[in-house]
């Protein structure tokens, strides 16, 4: 280990420009394409109120007489609705933009909640050790044997049983975020616990303890910054999983209601009309969902490899 002071930090941008990460990004065409797709979809989701030609959830602008219009390039298509309309006369293109926004918000918040729970429990388990450690890790082991979707379904059912009186429209998003958060925390906890175990015995933690800092402060201010790195990769990979979980729950009819549809809800609506040949209601949200998840997964895979020093 060298004790010389590092050269005066170049500007952040210069450091990023010279880093291996940027180089490996520019080398992989697939990754660049994936990043482009993700960027497009994120922008579409973020600015949907301005990009969408109509507001599909404003009853005043939706007419039942416009229902089930095929995409504009097909016979009977209407130039007002590029991708056609659904069973309630909503413009499908606008509905997809708004739906993607809902999907990403739910998936993203669910991921963040999972990360917060996982990091907290992982820090506690790794730093405190002993009984706390074995209890937390035993729970993690048990939960890991069950598929996330099953846990999410159970939590969904329980939460809705507990808050029976609240209307579904108001609670649906929170229920989903909690279900996803509680189903995905294990991976974070295990990773953080592993690196906390290593950090705990290092000199700077000893020093902090000797100074008499309280344990929560040591965990948050000193250990956490040194173990947080790998979380970024898990976060990216789990975003795809979380979006799929949300879509699956919505498809199964226990997620978001048709009044505020996510991509999964749109697919579930479209699935009912598949047999009458109205393929577009299910096809376009389906393709969007697939593209989103595939691109996020590709980015996640790349990030994992790029940040892994052993693979460089």
């Amino acid at each position: 280990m060298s004790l010389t002071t590092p050269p005066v930090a170049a500007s952040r941008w210069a450091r990023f420009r010279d880093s291996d990460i940027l180089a490996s990004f520019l080398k992989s065409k697939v990754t660049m394409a994936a990043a482009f797709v993700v960027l497009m979809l994120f922008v579409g989701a973020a600015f949907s109120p301005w990009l969408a030609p109509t507001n599909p959830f404003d009853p005043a602008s939706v007419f039942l007489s416009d229902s089930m219009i095929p995409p504009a390039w097909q016979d009977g298509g209407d130039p007002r609705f590029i991708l056609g309309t659904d069973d309630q006369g909503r413009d499908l293109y606008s509905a997809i933009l708004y739906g993607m926004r809902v999907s990403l918000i739910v998936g993203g918040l669910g991921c963040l909640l999972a990360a917060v729970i996982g990091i907290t429990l992982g820090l506690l388990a790794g730093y405190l050790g002993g009984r706390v450690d074995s209890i937390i890790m035993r729970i993690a082991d048990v939960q890991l044997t069950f598929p996330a979707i099953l846990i999410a379904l159970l939590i969904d059912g329980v939460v809705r049983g507990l808050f029976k009186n609240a209307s579904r429209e108001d609670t649906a998003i929170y229920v989903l975020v909690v279900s996803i958060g509680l189903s995905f925390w294990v991976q974070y906890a295990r990773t953080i616990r592993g690196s906390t175990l290593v950090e705990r015995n290092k000199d700077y933690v000893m020093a902090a303890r000797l100074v008499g800092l309280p344990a929560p402060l040591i965990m948050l201010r000193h250990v956490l910054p040194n173990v947080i790195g790998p979380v970024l990769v898990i976060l990216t990979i789990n975003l795809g999983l979380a979006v799929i979980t949300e879509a699956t729950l919505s498809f199964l009819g226990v997620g978001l209601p048709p009044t505020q549809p996510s991509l999964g809800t749109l697919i579930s609506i479209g699935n009912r009309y598949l047999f009458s040949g109205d393929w577009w209601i299910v096809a376009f949200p389906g393709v969007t969902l697939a593209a989103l998840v595939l691109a996020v997964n590709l980015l996640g895979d790349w990030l994992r490899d790029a940040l892994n020093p052993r693979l460089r």
Partner: protein
Amino acid sequence: MLAFILRRLFQSLIVMLSVALIAFAMFRFVGDPVNQIVSLDTPAEQVRQIRQSLGLDDPFLVQFARYIYNAARLEFGVSYQFRLPVISLLGERAPATLELAFCSALFSLLVGIPMGVYTALNRDSWLAKLFQAISLIGISLPTFLIGILLIYLFSVTLGWLPSFGRGDVVKIGSWWTTGLLTVSGLKALILPSITLGLFQMTLIMRLVRAEMLEVLRADYIKFARARGLTTRAVHFGHALKNTLVPVITIAGLQLGSIIAFAIITETVFQWPGMGQLFLRSVQNVDIPIMAAYLMLISFLFVSINLMVDLLYAMVDPRLRATVGAH
């Protein structure tokens, strides 16, 4: 060895007890069981009597013990929505789910292993790259989307295969029904099995590929080649045989998640199985069914895990020492 078996049995018991505690807590505290029986204008005195007769006033531990005792006898109470014993509802639908799970596991093994072997042996061929791409898509696409795609292709457009239900089923014994003996039953199994097995198939393919690549570098493979054995004998007699142990383990462990993932497939194909029942119980907050399903699935998971561990310990003495150590 006996100590190891006992320790593992004890651990499994603890896991089952904690799952039972969760199931019991759901059963007892989410939606008061009494509210499901009485109506709004039942006199308070009667509510109290019902409460007493159901044993809801007993201490928590007594109630929990009673719940476990009943669960061990497969009595999970009465469904709120169907007004029938939960166990008969689940038992009636179990054959459909188990048959589907079995067929999709078979599909994932029979297709996944050859694909994995091929991609490992011909790493640079275009077919291997195609398989790799398919596996990436198989992992990224949500199960229900694959199901919808297959239905649109083979049922709506081509009209070859049915899109819902089990077809004609034959009754075997007192309660088992099978779709494996009729043409329409077999046809109905194809699409759901593929949908359910696709994820596992890609998993197995990737695993076989990785293991094969690893094994092919081993010394005994070089030695086998040096002995002048045919490539065929080396690849299939030596390499594949040694990759199959971890593959079969993973496949065994995945059997539980296949049954859990059947919830989605059963919904897409309107398959009359346990998963569909569970989903309906989640939608209607029918706690007895949810709790019973949770218990059954965990029992399945725990038994499979236990069996795999014990088999491993039998095969590999080193494991006994290390597992026993902590």
